[in-house]
């Protein structure tokens, strides 16, 4: 870190920000170039939320310890009835509780 000037850090941050912005407009630029969206593509685009968000969950479950697995199952069950904050608190609480029970 010492060898990086402030200007250097700022430029890297700006470049990373630009790279991120490109990902946020990229798909839009591709799709907006079409005058009409074919139904098949629309089905695929409709699958985007589940497809992407699942990849942020599944590996964490698969590679997580037993307390992570239990916490995520608890969160899933709670989330079916009470999405949002209750799900978050249930999952987080379960993981914390299990860790403190087994680690102390």
């Amino acid at each position, binding site marked *: *870190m*010492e*060898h*990086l000037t*402030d200007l250097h*850090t700022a430029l*890297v*941050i700006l*470049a*990373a*920000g630009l*790279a*991120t*912005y*490109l*990902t*946020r*407009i*990229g*798909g*839009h630029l*591709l*799709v*907006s170039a079409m005058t009409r969206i074919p*139904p*098949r593509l*629309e*089905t*695929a*685009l*409709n*699958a*985007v*939320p*589940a*497809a*992407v*968000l*699942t*990849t*942020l*969950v*599944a*590996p964490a479950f*698969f590679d*997580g310890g037993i307390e*992570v697995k239990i*916490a*995520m199952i608890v*969160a*899933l069950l709670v*989330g079916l009835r009470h*999405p*949002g*904050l209750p799900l*978050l608190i249930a*999952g*987080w609480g379960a*993981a*914390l509780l299990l860790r403190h029970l087994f680690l102390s």
Partner: protein
Amino acid sequence: MSSSFFRQGARAGMVVGFSTLPFGLLFGAVAVDGGMTPLEATMMSGVIFGGASQLVGVQMFGTHVPAWLIVLSVFAVNFRHILYSAALSPHLRAYSPLARFSALFFLTDPQFAEASKQVDRNGKVEPSWYFGMAFVVYGLWVASSAIGALFGRLVGDPAALGFDVLLPVYFLGLVLGFRRRPLFSIVVPISATASILAMHTVGSPWHVSIGALAGVIAALVLHKPAKTADAGETS
């Protein structure tokens, strides 16, 4: 009229913003721990506005990794946003160009998830709703990063506080929000399996893009044309 949409969006942003507050604090703390100044950490949140990629980038800052590799890694972690902007694109057609390209800057995971739920509910996303949510989430994200950077020592060990579980649980909640969409029960296991396999072969962060593409391609293949009657009228 539009101010009530703005308020509804802002309310959605509050829920999201407060759930992501721990991550903002964590990011600020990790950034300063890795040698960044609080100003740089806050600037990073303001310019990139993507939690996971910022954490990856900041961890590389501490090492002697070349700058282009840091930028490439941030790009790789954020690659999934290409799919988000493609999926949201049809619903941005009514926006002015300035509003559209401003809106896309704020297209984070929760912003995309909540905007998609608006589409499920109302068939569209009002610009004032979108920006109401975006401004609140952005403000809380930048503020929590700054606080984490200034008072990072108080945050402590992420694992002991369960932050590592909070993120996947949070995304699990977002996934559940789409369980009534067509093909959900097929797309989820395919994306899950592909991402786990990719995680253990290609490695992170590409498992996200590979798993996501697997699910999207599955939907593309499994698409069934709408039933005959309205074939001519829809476009």
